[in-house]
């Protein structure tokens, strides 16, 4: 039958579409439709309590520029993201290098450093909230060695640092195991050759290790940056955005505007802004790969 309808390739096309149908329809319904709606809402003044929904064009975007609280939120977000990424990646790399030393007991330490990843985020945050109280465990420990610790979560300077540290300890294990896998993939003969040539360990680390694991550095930095922009539960539990607005990051501000002040239109505008930032940062990092990523695995 040379003219039969169900040829192999038609069959494959049907099968392919049936296989991806749930994911594709789901993406349309729960990603693209809401994304379109967010843009649409952002063009409206929409107060849920007052039940108003009027088209205002770009007014919400104008309001972004004039909103001093948003400027604070962006500063807080930048501070949080930068602090988190630097601390997380350097600690993750340090831990991975230490655990890559073929010592006994590394499985134990790997388990320890990874364990916060599997602890429920809010449970973890609640424990740290307890530890960081003025009369909590951290300050009690400090006091036993004669140091008078600050009220961590209520101080302008310390609150953000505390949130960053709590978040780094929670998630650094994930990046650590990714780095560890990358380190174990670096061929040993490279180091042997470098040792023969008399390169110092530092030199080897900078000239062999870092270039060889640069794809992983890029991957983990993208994941960590995007993740850092989504921090919410930690802020909600630890500081509620305070003291003042010092820890009101963009997502927390978005939540306040939309679900506490019921400004859905402005909340949607903030969502668009968040989307634009994520897109921009991802593009920038992706571009940077050509510059400093040694090879693509």
């Amino acid at each position, binding site marked *: 039958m040379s003219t039969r309808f169900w040829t192999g390739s038609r069959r494959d096309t049907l099968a392919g579409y049936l296989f991806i149908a749930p994911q594709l329809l789901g993406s349309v319904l729960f990603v693209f439709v809401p994304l379109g709606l967010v843009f649409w809402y952002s063009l409206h003044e929409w107060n849920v309590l007052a039940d108003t929904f009027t088209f205002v064009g770009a007014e919400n975007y104008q309001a972004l520029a004039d909103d001093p609280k948003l400027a604070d939120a962006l500063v807080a977000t930048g501070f949080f993201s930068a602090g988190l990424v630097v601390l997380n990646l350097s600690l993750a790399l340090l831990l991975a290098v230490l655990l890559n030393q073929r010592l006994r007991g590394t499985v134990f330490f790997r388990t320890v450093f990874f364990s916060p990843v599997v602890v429920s985020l809010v449970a973890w945050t609640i424990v740290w909230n307890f530890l960081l109280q003025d009369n909590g465990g951290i300050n*009690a420990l400090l006091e036993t060695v004669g140091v008078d610790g600050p009220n961590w979560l209520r101080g302008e300077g310390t609150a953000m640092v505390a949130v960053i540290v709590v978040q780094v300890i929670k998630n650094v294990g994930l990046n650590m195991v990714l780095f560890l896998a990358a380190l174990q993939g670096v061929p040993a003969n490279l180091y042997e050759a470098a040792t023969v040539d008399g390169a110092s360990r530092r030199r080897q680390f900078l000239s062999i290790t870092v270039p060889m694991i640069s794809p992983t550095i890029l991957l983990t930095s993208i994941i960590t940056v995007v993740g850092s922009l989504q921090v919410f539960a930690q802020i909600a539990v630890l500081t509620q955005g305070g003291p003042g607005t010092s820890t009101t990051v963009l997502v927390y501000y978005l939540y306040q505007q939309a679900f506490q002040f019921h400004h*859905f239109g402005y909340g949607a505008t903030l969502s668009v802004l968040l989307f634009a930032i994520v897109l921009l940062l991802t593009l920038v990092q992706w571009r940077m790969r050509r510059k400093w990523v040694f090879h693509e695995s």
Partner: protein
Amino acid sequence: MSRRAKTAVYGVLCLLALPFLFPTWWMVTSSLKPVGDIFAFPPTLFPTDVSFDAYAKAFELQPFARQYFNSMYIAALVTVGTLAVSSLAGYAFARIKFKGANLWFVVILVGLLIPSEVTIVPLFKMFDAWGMVDTHWPLILVPILGAPSVLATFIMRQFFLALPGELEEAAKVDGLGRFAIFRLIALPLARPALGAVAIFTFLHSWNLYLEPIVFLSSSEMFTLPQALTQFVDAYGGPMWDIQLSAASLTALPVLVVFVIAQRQFIEGLAHTGLKG
């Protein structure tokens, strides 16, 4: 490595391990202390009188057992659903040659760039319109079908791409249909990837906080993370002993499973999870 270097490495590791271990220890021991001892100075590393009062109170103040069940069954459903959706789509994108495959793959990947916080406002309005606010549907449907499952699909695709195709080709020659090949041959081989996807999907659902507090309003519908923050006194201050006991009940079972299966957890995530 010299003895001194070894000692130094162990010293650094032990020191660094403290902030990772101490919080869990302090959570569990404090939850067992009588409420008056919780902020006692000097701090005691072991509770002197063990009291389970706070645990009992957690179940009295809120329908905590129900909330526990909510979190468990939602995370379980989301995990199974995500495995099904992502393995089907990942397999098709890796193995089936069909027109438009690349285009749709890129379209779906866009979801990776959209944090769920971006779409939370319209999603709330959509589920409101469907009468599904204060039900578990948003917490089940969005992760399985929406942006969170895109990463799972990507991982499954990478895994299937790396899998040798001879077995499947042989099965095809034998006249097996696509779905049969997928189910009988490809899926059993994909166990490591499925395991990694299952682990991070379960944890993702188990950790959700913004979505539950946006979508749910009655306490018997709450999930655990949301319930934990509701143990507050009349002034909104945390009831520490109860929060800590409820947090222990939330964290410990997953921690125990992790410690037992840590190799699968870590190596699964490291090797199939996020490479490529």
